[in-house]
């Protein structure tokens, strides 16, 4: 605990100078305000020097504060300076945090408080369409690294006083500010309290991204009970259903809780297209998920253990291909799977100039040449390729899918279709046991509620029906009602 502002400007200045020794971005401007010593502190790069000069320095230098130290700060605050965001602060720890958050601090001789001004001027990226959530019909703006800008984007879309932004902070070193966003009267007070409590219990030293906090908001499990999005329209839609959004400074991703499993298949475009098309696309995604998760495992299981399931002509084709290749189908598929993951990661991390090289090497050299050389078989390669492509239809589930594919591949290779079935049941059990802030992850599929499943899972009702009754997340089946 560093204590409070003393009013002795030399001492107070010395405190800050000592803290920012060897920090070349630390700026300190001494002033004489009609015989009263003052000092303006700021960190270069975080503040707008133009605003400081126009709004603070110029008016201050023309000011003649009263001799009485008690009236000095009030005079400056109310009659001299004209910035929108200014307040008094006494605690030195808080002043340090504010300084490092882009605030400027004015110390005045004889005053036990400092004046703090919000004059942030650091460079931020303009809102661009998020690369990970491309929509055909939705808005083209996405969140940026500044949570203040993000708050503004949400506020612009939800013009209601029920929209609340509660300030919080995590990280003992980073002091990362964050905001809890929800609609009062719509969000469950228990859920909001729960989020608050979990964030308070977060013992991170640094929080450099929203993903750091996700682990504190969910239970361990294969599928996450915390959603992430970079789209303001999605956040608005979710908080209107009673969810709580967590905006974190320094990251364009916003966390959403509670997050249900079926939401992984929902996108903004579903709500902007005709209902029948939205339903079709939804089912396509369900199918893509199953193809991506199960195809490699089932292919290996059927080829190795249950060839009776294959039509004869396909079976003979696969047999002919297997004869040419040196590896068993299980090892071959495993090899191709890892090769694909390496290629995917390389494509993601490689510099743009090398992107085409990676594509050529991956596609032509490894794909075509390996098959022609008889190192791998075409059916195995096709299976892995189809799996990969299908996975991108449900990009939110990519991480668990990568693991699931591998697990099902191994189970299918060892125990055939039944191994895959046992694996599927294990995943179902894990999903059934997991909840997100008291809401079962599989809701409303299990526990089942026909109206909710028809509303926005099996199909997407037209907006005339959707708008009639709001489906809040805390009203999902399986949520224990506290009396």
């Amino acid at each position, binding site marked *: 605990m560093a204590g409070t502002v003393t009013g002795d400007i030399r001492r107070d200045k010395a405190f800050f100078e000592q803290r920012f020794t060897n920090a070349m971005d630390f700026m300190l401007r001494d002033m004489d305000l009609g015989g009263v010593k003052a000092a303006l502190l700021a960190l270069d790069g975080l503040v707008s020097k133009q605003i400081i000069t126009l709004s603070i320095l110029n008016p201050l230098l023309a000011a003649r504060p009263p001799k009485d130290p008690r009236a000095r700060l009030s005079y400056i605050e109310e009659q001299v300076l004209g910035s929108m965001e200014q307040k008094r602060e006494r605690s030195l720890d808080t002043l340090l945090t504010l300084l490092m958050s882009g605030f400027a601090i004015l110390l005045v001789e004889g005053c036990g408080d400092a004046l703090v001004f919000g004059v942030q001027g650091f460079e931020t990226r303009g809102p661009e369409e998020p690369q990970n959530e491309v929509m055909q019909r939705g808005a083209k703006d996405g969140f940026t690294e500044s949570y203040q800008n993000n708050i503004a984007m949400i506020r612009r879309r939800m013009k209601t006083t029920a929209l609340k932004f509660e300030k919080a902070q995590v990280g003992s070193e980073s002091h990362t500010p964050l905001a809890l966003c929800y609609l009062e009267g719509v969000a469950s007070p228990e859920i909001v309290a729960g989020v608050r409590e979990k964030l308070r*219990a977060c013992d991170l030293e640094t929080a450099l991204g929203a993903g750091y906090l996700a682990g504190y908001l969910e239970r361990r499990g294969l599928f996450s009970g915390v959603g992430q999005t970079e789209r303001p329209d999605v956040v608005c839609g979710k908080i209107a259903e009673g969810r709580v959004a967590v905006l974190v400074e320094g990251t364009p991703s916003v966390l959403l809780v509670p997050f249900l499993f079926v939401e992984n298949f929902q996108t903004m475009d579903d709500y902007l297209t005709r209902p029948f098309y939205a339903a079709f696309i939804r089912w396509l995604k369900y199918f893509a998920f199953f193809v991506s998760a199960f195809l490699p495992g089932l292919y290996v299981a059927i080829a*190795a253990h249950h060839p009776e399931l294959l039509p004869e002509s396909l079976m*003979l084709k696969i*047999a002919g291909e297997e004869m040419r290749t040196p590896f068993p189908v299980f090892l071959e598929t495993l090899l191709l799977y890892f090769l694909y993951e390496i290629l995917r990661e390389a494509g993601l991390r490689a510099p743009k100039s090398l992107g085409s090289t990676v594509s050529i090497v991956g596609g032509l050299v490894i794909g075509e040449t390996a098959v022609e050389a008889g190192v791998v078989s075409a059916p195995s390669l096709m299976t892995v390729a189809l799996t990969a492509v299908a996975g991108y239809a449900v990009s939110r589930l990519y991480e668990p899918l990568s693991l699931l594919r591998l697990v099902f591949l191994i189970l299918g290779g*060892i125990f055939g279709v039944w191994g895959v079935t046992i694996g599927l049941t294990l995943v179902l059990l894990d999903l059934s046991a997991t909840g997100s802030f008291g809401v079962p992850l599989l809701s409303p599929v299990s526990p089942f509620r026909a109206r909710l499943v028809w509303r926005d899972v099996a199909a997407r009702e037209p907006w005339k029906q959707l708008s009639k009754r709001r489906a809040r997340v805390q009203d999902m089946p399986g949520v224990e009602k506290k009396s």
Partner: protein
Amino acid sequence: MKAKPLCGKILRRAACILLGAALLLPLSGCGGRELFERLLIHGIGVDKDGDGVLVTVRSSASEAQEELFTARGSTVLEALGSLTLTTGRKPFYAHNYLVVFGKACAADGLDRYLDFFVRYYSTRPSVELFLAEDRAQEVLSSEKEAGYLKMSELQQLSESGRETGESVGAALLDFVNAARRPGSDPVLPVVRTLEGGGVEIVSTAYFKGFTLQGEMPLKETRGLLVAQDELRTGEAVVRGDFGAATLTLSAVDGEIAYRPGGDGPPQFTVSIRAEADVSAVSDTQAVLNEAAYRAIEDALEAQLKEEIEAAFARTARRDGCDVFGLGNTVFREDPSRWRTLEANWRETLGQCGLDIQVACEIHRLEQEIFGPALG
């Protein structure tokens, strides 16, 4: 947050280690057998060979590669199992299309030879059965166009036979059921090889239980199919004053009704209703007027009735084989009566009355569309 007890952590870790070990155990055999390491059988022939059997097997290692193997053994399974010694591959029966039995096996009683296909875990109940005119080995080793006849083509034969309405199709399931049902006997299509290559269906074999009793020609087979309401389609040529007319049968419904017959043997009524189209007439100048149509209908009715009567006379009256399932009809509709007839049913069958009523309708398209013909 409450700290998890240490015991729980230890238990969880122990469970993970056990699970991992359990999964590792079968890894030595992981991946199963490769497809090309299996003998992918799609046709089996069984012939009596002294006291044992000779099996002929058709398989494919790949799409272009057809193989033929023979093996001997005291039982079918033993013979098939010995194929592993000659081929080095484990037989895979799940894609076996068909089984052809030699005539000697049928005369001996097919139940001995069928047991493997019924009981073994990976054989299919829906596999098609055929009877060879002589030896199954000849049928399976028959060649066509500088290669072996494809088993899929042989399987197609039973399908195409159904299209002409002159041959039966019998899956293993159907054959066993027909043999084991009270008051019922099975039938099988009989195939023979052709001189120029390929095979053809020549007749229908009928059985008493599992033992071959005789064969009926294809025309009588149609009579059987019509009576059992199993005729899907077919061609019929009828002759009369109008010349020779080729008819395409479309909707054919057959029904066998049971009448107790008092103290005497049961009486049955076979009611057939058929529709047909005139596909060709030998005298192309002939105008098909109403009288001609009626004559064609009468001729078709007479022909169908004759075929049914001939089939019944041969199988039931002469040989005591209940391929029409008349006894089964009594069993289901009059169980108490069946109890009295069961013991001597084969003798009683020949005395049963069979009243055949056939009603045929030829589609008169010209008249329906353009109006009745003048004159």
